[in-house]
């Protein structure tokens, strides 16, 4: 079990670094959603299903949609 958690945390780190490095904001939003989704999986593995549900619905779902809408209505690429 601890190996799965370690792999999840590793992927989260990769996604988080990718989020900060991407110049294309849509890609950054998608990797940010991946961090949330992996965090929700991690919460589930750590026996916190309540938090996992909230993280999956709000972090990976609604927040991502709001970011995408905001990027669509402003500029897609960072300068």
């Amino acid at each position: 079990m601890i190996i799965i958690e370690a792999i999840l945390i590793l992927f989260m780190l990769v996604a988080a670094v990718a989020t900060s490095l991407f110049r294309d904001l849509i890609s950054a939003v998608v990797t940010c959603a991946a961090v949330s989704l992996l965090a929700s999986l991690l919460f589930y593995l750590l026996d916190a299903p309540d938090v996992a549900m909230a993280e999956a619905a709000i972090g990976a779902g609604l927040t991502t949609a709001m970011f995408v809408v905001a990027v669509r209505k402003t500029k897609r690429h960072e300068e």
Partner: protein
Amino acid sequence: MRKAVALLLVLVVGAGFYVVLANIPFGVDKADVANHYVRNGARETGAVNIVTAIVVAYRGFDTLGEVTVLFIAAVGVGAVLLPASRPAAEEKTEASLIVRTGSRVLFPFIILLGAYILVHGHLTPGGGFQGGAVIASGFLLLYLAWPGQGAARKAFSAVESLSGLAFVAVGILGIVYGVGFLGNFLPLGVRNELLSAGVIPIIYVAIGLKVGAELAGVVGHLMERP
């Protein structure tokens, strides 16, 4: 130069976090109050899900504050993204057939799942906040599929206000019955049944409707802004 300063700042903040977190004995029984909740939570509140027992019964007042914070945030979004007087639908293209058909099929099931989560908050993991977020994501799907259609924003605010009022009214009824604000004045019932745990299901349904209407309203404000 700026990057070096930023790196230094990150290192300092990281070291601070490490020092603080390294001193917390994770996984060790320290707080008596946590042990009390785990041992007596189900008996005292009737809620099998201890997280719900803490959030709604023991810490109901905090939850009221949390809901208020969310309400203020939704009001702030509504004030900043004041809906344009003209309909913003003109230049918007329609979503593809796949999205429209998929959302038509999925929407009832998403709403059903959200309702299940918020009604069964005292029995299974989840509750008002989670169920409300799921319901709001169902409405998000509708917005994606039919971007031009105006939302039922009046219905959202009506549901939001009424469920907020219901939450506070249940709390005040607790004072009337002499058990204190947000206290439980209903019979606890049989454990593991849907209608058990006193006022917890009522409060969580109110919270779920409120959170769902608020988040759906925020999403609607964002999507409809041209």
